[in-house]
């Protein structure tokens, strides 16, 4: 099946190129694949703005994502386990979570800039908000879905509260938690680009790159940037899936 989807991709790109050659897809609306490749190569070699090379843009965006995503995981996982474990804490905190959660991370940008200024901190904060809730909610549901008898069985074997938290709830919630991490990283990656649209005034970032390409009307470079974003997102998720198959081999 893999070769088939590869083939399909190849055929579509070829068709796209063909339609561009025939003039059916005008380059000022959508550039041809070859044109995009050329745009990408200028991004790699000359950079945009000149001297700001593509890989540095990507690395800077990745750094922001890891920053925000890392903090989000570090807070959401323990909080999710505790909220799943304790009915009282869950009842107290759920309203807060449910009110803050629907606010789009992007709506926080003005506040983020007010608090952290323009730069990695405010971008990381926006990403944090995007990644935090999927991780939190999936961790909670992972704990809630656990078979109560597992907890009872370990209690009978002498497990104390901390044993149950660390040795039963945490590993037991892992499958669902991991899904939360994958969703959180995906949303974080989507948010970084959007955050860079408005939150970065100079320097590096794939979102920033696309904004400049728009300003100088280079659709080839716009789409080139979009493709890089897509590939990196895919790559990030495939890393998590790799780890997942190792981590959850017991399932």
């Amino acid at each position, binding site marked *: 099946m893999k070769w088939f989807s590869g083939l399909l991709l190849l055929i579509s790109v070829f068709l796209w190129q063909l339609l561009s050659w025939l003039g059916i897809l005008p380059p000022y609306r959508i550039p041809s694949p070859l044109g995009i490749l050329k745009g990408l190569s200028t991004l790699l070699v000359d950079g945009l703005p000149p001297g700001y090379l593509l890989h540095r843009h990507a690395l800077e965006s990745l750094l922001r994502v890891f920053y925000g995503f890392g903090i989000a995981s570090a807070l959401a996982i323990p909080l999710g386990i505790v909220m799943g474990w304790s009915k009282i804490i869950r009842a107290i905190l759920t309203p807060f979570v449910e009110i803050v959660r629907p606010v789009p991370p992007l709506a926080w940008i003005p506040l983020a800039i007010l608090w952290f200024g323009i730069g990695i901190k405010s971008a990381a904060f926006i990403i944090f908000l995007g990644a935090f809730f999927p991780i939190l909610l999936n961790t909670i549901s992972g704990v809630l879905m656990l078979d109560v008898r597992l907890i009872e069985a370990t209690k009978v074997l*002498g497990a104390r509260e901390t044993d149950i938290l660390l*040795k039963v709830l945490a590993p037991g919630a892992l499958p669902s938690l991991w899904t939360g991490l994958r969703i959180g990283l995906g949303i974080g990656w989507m948010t970084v680009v959007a955050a860079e649209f408005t939150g970065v005034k100079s320097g590096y970032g794939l979102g920033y790159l696309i904004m400049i390409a728009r300003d100088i009307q280079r659709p080839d470079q716009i789409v080139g940037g979009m493709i890089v974003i897509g590939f990196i997102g895919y790559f990030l998720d495939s890393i998590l899936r790799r780890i997942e198959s190792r981590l959850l081999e017991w399932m």
Partner: protein
Amino acid sequence: MEPLLRLINIRKTFNSVKDQKVEAVDEISLEVWEGEFLCILGRSGCGKTTLLRMIAGLEPPTGGEIFLENQLIRGTDPNVGLIFQEFVLLPWRTVLGNIEFGLEVMGVDQAQRRRKAMEYIKIIELEGFEHQYPKELSGGMKQRVAIARAIICNPKILLMDEPFAALDAQTRFNMQKFLLSLWEKTGKTIFFVTHNVDEAVFLGQRLILLSSRPGKIISETKVDLDYPRDIHSMEFIRIRKEALQQLENN
């Protein structure tokens, strides 16, 4: 001699949906002696599981008291082991990891608990399966792991809640024989709950019959047959028939 376990007037009522009280266990008093193999026999829903859960400290009784060696049971206690019907192994731990669990939370160091767990793997005849996950085991193997996991903590009494009910007939028979040999080897006190009359007569030195809703003791029978028991012997058939009749009449 003092009994190992003493139940005094144990009652348990639950609040049902419409705030009605449902009596699950009614005034059960009994004594269990050290080294004994006791079978509690009753139909489904007679409160057997509730009774076990109270002894294991997972639920407090509504009335009455439970003593283990004159100590009032207030919560779970490593001295009381419990085996569930559905095995309940930690799916993310290997056979070895599951068996080690109790020692781990007790703070036994790794080398020592590994050594001890390997001993028990030999006892339950699962050599070669140490590093398998529960999903890779059959029902009978899972239950052996659960038994090893419980007895490695050296409990004074092992409570078993229909441990073989989920197994096919042949495996169940093998597990019954395995349990008897384990009991003979270790001398553990076993408190075995089942709805299966054959199983109870095959295993127990003493049978206690419970009525349904609420669970109440109907009778107590001593089974004075040598192990391994011949299920076709006259005496076996007679005890079995009597137990069946009593269950039907109550």
